[in-house]
Each structure stands twice: as C-alpha cells, then as structure tokens.
C-alpha cells in the first residue's frame, strides 16, 4: 500500500513536470522577432488540403525575412498541428496567442475549425487570416476573410453556365456534402435561380456524407435528371475526399462536360493531382485564382514555389493565393501602423491594396473581406485549368448575402459602423 502511494506521488510529480512543459516557450520568449502563427492541420483528414498552406506560409515568411523582415525585426513562424480536431484548433489558437505571443495567425480550412477558434481570437483580441472560400454569413473584427464569399464564386459560376458560352444551362443539379458551406451556398443559389425564372422542378438538390465514396446511384440520378430535354448542369459543392470517387464515377459513366457540365467550388489543382483528368476534360471550377493564369507575378510565384518545394511538379491553388494576399496585406498594414498591436493593425489594414496573382490589385474592405476577380476554368488533360471566363472587374466580397431572408438586411462595416452584423432596417448592431 505504501508502495503504491509513493508510485502515485512519483507519477503526479511527473505529470506536474509535464504540465509545466507547455509553459516553457512563454518564458523563452524573446523580443527580437515577430511571431506569426500557422494553424493548419498536418495530420488527420484535413492534412490533405492544409499542409500546403503551411508550406506557403513558411515560404512567404522566409521571403519577407530575406527582404529584411518587418519593422526591423525578423519574422518567426510558429507551426502547430491542430490535427483536424476542432477543439484542438481552439486549444492551439489559444496557445499561439497566449504562449507564443504571435502577432497574427494564418490558418483554418473548414468552417467548423474557424468557428471553433473564433471565440479565442475575439477574447484575446488577435488576428486571424482565413484563406478558404466559405459560406459567408459572418464578419468578425478579428478575422480577415481572404477566400471567396458566395458572391465571389458561386453566383458568377451560375451566371456563366446560364450564358451562351457556358452552354445555356436550364436545369440544375446542386450536389454537395452535407455541411454548412454547401447548405448555405445551395440555399443562396436556389434563391438566385428561382429569381432568375428557373422552375422549382428544374432544380435537384442532393447531399451526401463526408468522404462519400460510392457515387453510382447519384451519378445515375444526375444522368436521369439530365435526360429531360433541357440542358443540365451540375453545381458541385462536394468536399475534398469525396471528389475523387465522384469524378472517377462521372468519367466511368461517360458523362462528358459537353453533355452535363459540372462546375465545382472545392476542386482545384491540388485535388485534380489525384485524378486522371482525361475523362473530365471541360468540366469546370470557379475560383479566384488558377495556376494557369498567365502573368509575370503569377509566373514568378510559381517559380518560387517550385523552388521552395524542390519539386518541379508542385502545384499552386486558390487558397494559397489567398494566403499570399492576406500575408502581404498584413505586412503593409503593420508597416502602416508601425506596430503589431492587433487593434492598430486591424484599423490600418482596411483599404490596403496589394497585387493579387491574377494581375489585379485586391483591396481589404471594411467588412474584412477582399476584392477578387472571379475566374471560371475548364479542366485540362494535364490537371490544370483553362480560364474560359472571368469577371471584368474585381468583385467585392459580401459577408451577408442578399439572397437569404435572414441576412439580406445585414451589413458589415468595421470602419464606420464598427459592427459585423448591422441591421439596416432596425438601424442597430446585432
């Protein structure tokens, strides 16, 4: 009995020592660098998408340091792995801010991970740059949304399919993974299509679980829906892992882009790298950036990226561009504010303009979204996209869509209104 008591003492001492471990970096903190948090999953289901974003951040930080750093100090990346585990995202965000004292964090991919860290960034008043297209319906003081809002991706894509060039689609399949982004996007699209005179029976909405791998039935359903005599198109908000089996099934079933075009919002160069794209020729994706965009800025970026990855086949994609824009905006804002203090940077960053990789200049708006061009690309046999259409001007990101009942009266403005959800009807915040 005595023995076990001692053993327990020893164990608890060990536990206490280990508990003290995470505190060490806080003590070791030094003042000669500016720390930047990188909060992307490096393991688990999301590693497939997020790992490259970590790498691109490391590259950007390295380049900035080569240019002399920021405010005379070197930047230092703090990489953590939230392991595709949402509560761990919150824990790691807190760790980045409180222990590592990062000036800003670049991270998250899924909506739920962003939702999970949101309270942390608000509470500790820090800055998050979120680089992925998302469902909108959010604008927070501490978050900058450098990915597309629905009006910067979904609606232009549908417009394109309705146009002559896009094949004058009259019948729509909205297929998505069952989570918030597809749900919201499809809701917006449905409202939009109905407003455009599309009949209810010409819209088919279908949801599948995460990682859905057996698409035989659904592909057959799409084929069936498409044989009603009207040009049919598919708008796909199918997420990550499920895309490869979906496209493989499409290819096997012989559905060509000239018959039923599929426009996807979550399929980029990275995802295509896992598929034989020959049967998918001509299927579409809507993004704000494609690797195949021809201009000197992009070409230089791709070159740097390939050199950084030491891989000639390394591909670039839209969320990477979003990080590039976000990072450059942050650098400019810090230089403008001459401090890394969150409040001052948040004030300084609105209105900052930096060149994006598609040849334009993106601007940070008062609603913490940015202006971006919308590009429609067709899948090529080599896994890249041909840009077949793009908006003439940059499209400002809209936090609150006009096509949904609950949000059409809301407006976000962090400069004048100091509010992320100002109700223009009730004339009050929240």
């Amino acid at each position, binding site marked *: 009995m005595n023995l*076990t*008591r001692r053993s*327990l003492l020893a164990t608890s001492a060990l536990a206490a020592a280990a508990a003290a471990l995470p505190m060490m970096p806080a003590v070791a903190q030094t003042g000669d660098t500016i720390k930047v948090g990188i909060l992307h999953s490096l*393991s688990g289901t999301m590693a497939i998408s997020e790992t490259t974003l970590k790498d691109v951040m490391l590259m950007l930080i390295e380049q900035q340091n080569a240019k002399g750093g920021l405010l005379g100090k070197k930047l230092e990346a703090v990489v953590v*792995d939230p392991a595709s585990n949402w509560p761990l995202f919150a*824990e790691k965000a807190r760790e980045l801010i409180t222990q590592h004292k990062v000036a800003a964090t670049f991270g998250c991919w899924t909506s739920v991970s962003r*939702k999970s860290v949101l309270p942390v960034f608000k*509470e500790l008043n820090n800055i998050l740059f979120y680089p992925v297209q998302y469902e909108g319906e959010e604008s927070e003081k501490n978050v900058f949304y450098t990915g597309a809002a629905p009006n910067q991706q979904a609606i232009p894509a549908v417009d394109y399919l309705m146009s002559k060039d896009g094949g004058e689609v009259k019948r729509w399949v909205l297929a998505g993974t069952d989570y918030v982004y597809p749900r919201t996007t499809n*809701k917006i699209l449905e409202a939009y299509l109905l407003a455009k005179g599309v009949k209810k029976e010409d819209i088919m909405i279908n949801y599948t679980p995460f990682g859905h791998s057996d698409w035989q039935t659904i592909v057959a359903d799409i084929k069936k829906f498409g044989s009603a005599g009207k040009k049919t198109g598919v708008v796909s908000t199918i997420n990550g892992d499920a895309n490869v089996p979906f496209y493989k099934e499409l290819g096997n079933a012989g559905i060509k882009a000239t018959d039923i075009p599929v426009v996807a919002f979550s399929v980029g160069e990275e995802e295509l790298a896992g598929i034989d794209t020959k049967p998918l020729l001509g299927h579409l994706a809507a993004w704000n950036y494609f690797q195949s965009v021809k201009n000197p800025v992009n070409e230089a970026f791709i070159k740097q990226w390939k050199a950084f990855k030491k891989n000639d086949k390394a591909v670039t994609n839209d969320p990477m561009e979003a990080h590039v824009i976000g990072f450059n905006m942050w650098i400019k804002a810090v230089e403008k504010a001459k401090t890394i203090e969150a409040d001052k940077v948040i004030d300084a960053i609105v209105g900052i303009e930096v060149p994006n990789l598609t040849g334009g200049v993106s601007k940070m708006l008062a609603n913490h979204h940015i202006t971006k061009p919308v590009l429609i690309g067709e899948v090529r046999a080599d896994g890249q996209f041909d840009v077949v259409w793009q908006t003439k001007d940059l499209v400002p990101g809209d936090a609150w869509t006009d096509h949904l009942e609950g*949000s059409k009266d809301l407006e976000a403005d962090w400069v004048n209104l100091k509010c992320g959800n100002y109700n223009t009807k009730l004339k009050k915040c929240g």
Partner: protein
Amino acid sequence: MISQAILARLDGRGRIFLGVILAALVAVPVLNMLVPVGSPFHVPTWLVSLMGKYLCFAILALALDLVWGYCGILSLGHGAFFALGGYAIGMYLMRQIGPRGVYGNPILPDFMVFLNYKELPWFWYGFDFFPFAALMVFLAPGILAFVFGWFAFRSRVTGVYLSIITQALTYALMLAFFRNDMGFGGNNGLTDFKDILGFSVQAPGTRLALFVATLLALAASYLFARAVVTSKAGKVLVAVRDAESRTRFLGFRVERYKLFVFVASAMMAGLAGALYVPQVGIINPSEFQPGNSIEVVIWVAVGGRGTLVGAAIGAILVNLAKTTFTTGALAPYWLFALGALFVLTTLLMPKGVIGTYAAWREKRREKLALAANAAATPAE
C-alpha cells in the same frame, strides 16, 4: 463520519489521488488569482482551461475503466455518451445566447435562422432552463445506454461483437449529427457560446470556476466508481468480467449488473462531456468519431486498466503528450510518437503505467527482502 466511510473505501492510491485533487483545488485558484502575472508561480488562465480539458478526459477515462476494467465490457462507443452530454449543455449555452446571435433572433440559434427554421424544434424545448439541461446531461446518455444495453446484454452480445456494435452506435450517431436536418447544427455543431448561468464563458473567473467544478466532478466520479467497485456489486462485476457464465449459474442476473454499470458509466461520460464543452467552446459531431472512442480505450490502457486512478492518469498523460508534440518543428511527426507510445505501452507495459510501476516496486521489495535475508544468514 461520512469522510471516514469514504476513506475506508479508498486504498492508498486513491487517497493520494484525492489528495492531489484537493491540493489542486486550493493551489490552482490561488496561483491563478492571487499570484501576480509576472511571477513564475502564476498559473495563467489558458493553462487552467487546458487542465480543465484534461480533467474532463480523465472523467471519461474513469467511466470507461469502470465498464471495461471492472466488467469487461470494451465499449468502443463511449465518445457517443461524452458527446451527448456535451450537446445537452451545448444546447443550453446556445439558448443562452438569446438575441445576441448574428441575426438577432431571440429564440432561434443562428444556424437555424440560416437554415430557414421558422420555429424551435421540439427537442430544443426546455434547454434554456439550466436544471433541465443539467438533467439531460445525465439522461440523454443514460437513456441511450439503457436502451442499447437493455437489448445487447439481454441478447448476451459479448466480446468483440459488443465492441463492434458500440462502434456502430457511435458511427451511426456521428452520421446522424452531421446531417443538418437533424437540427443540431450539422458539421459546425454548436459554438460561439456567451454565458453560462449568467457568467461569461470567456471570463477568467468562469474558467476557473469551470476548472474547479471539473476537479470536483472528477473527485465525485472517482469516489462513486470506487464505491461501486468496492461494494459487493463491484465484486459481482469482476466476477462477470472473469467468468460470466459462472456468475449466471450462481443466480446473478448478469445483464442487469452490466446494464447498471453501463448506464452509470455513460452518465459519467455525459458529465465529462458537459464540463468539456463550455471549456473548449465547441461541440461538433466529430466527437462521435469512432477514432475518438478508441483513443479513450488507449488512455485507460496506458494508465492501467482496472485501477481507476490509472485511467485518469493515462488520460492526462496522453493528452499532455498530444499538446506537447503538436507544437513546433516536429509537429508533422507527432503521430509517430503517439503511435509508438501505444505500441510500446502494450508491448512493454501491459498493465499500464500504474500497474507496471506497482509490479516493479513489488519486485524490488522482494529483492530487498531477499537481500536482507541473505545479509542476515552469515550472522548465523
């Protein structure tokens, strides 16, 4: 008197365990609130919350050890009960947001507004009332465990078959909760909580209070589990674990014992989930992932199955390791370390940390006694 009765049920290990909890109960609030921030002895609030999270896992591990370590029911679905408890409190926290949601709807949570719900689904009724939510923390997992256990134990589903259907249970729940049409917020789950019992969940004071509540819950769970395993019923449970059919031939209704301990354990898991959610700020269907439940089994195994204290320590150790390994340059490789930890534990320490240490001490004592004997012999 009561304290004496409690102490009588404890072994040395248990007394130390409770002693550590008691010490933390005093020390952490003092070090957090009274010691100035600059001092090396200051315990920052983030650490309080982090420890609170570990303690929730410790309660969960304790719950699993009760059914697995003492009754031989290897549940690969305990995460489901944990998540249900979490959802129960999460629903309360959502209702507390009231009109402060982004859409300003006083009744409907934000996700319902943008999914076009017109009114609150019936199963959300009552969750604005804390005692009801608190009751559901126990009832929701309890009822699920009761229904599931009632069928499974009566039909004498045992061993791996039982393990696999508990896994099917949590997997089915995960798929169900991922559905947005279920009315639990789908993949995004419940988040962006504001108040609990009128206090801001973000406030350091609330965080400390939650930590203290979790410590007390851990102590209570431990005492409860200890009371069960030291009672005659506890002996029946061990009998069931070691020779189920023999126990039956002695006239014990094995299925009822199993059902009792399974439901009790599910409720403990629910309690752990309920304390976890306000501290981490989110509950989402991924808590139902079968992998999460398997991890709980691993915590128990690492700490030492059938020791209660070991389960709690295992949970804390593994999660501490996770926190430590997932930061820094080695972050991409931390799964190697975690995987190796599990493999090595099973190979080298089949009885877990506690069991192995106890065995080692035992051996050393024998050796010392032998040496003492040997030293004594020449004197003859």
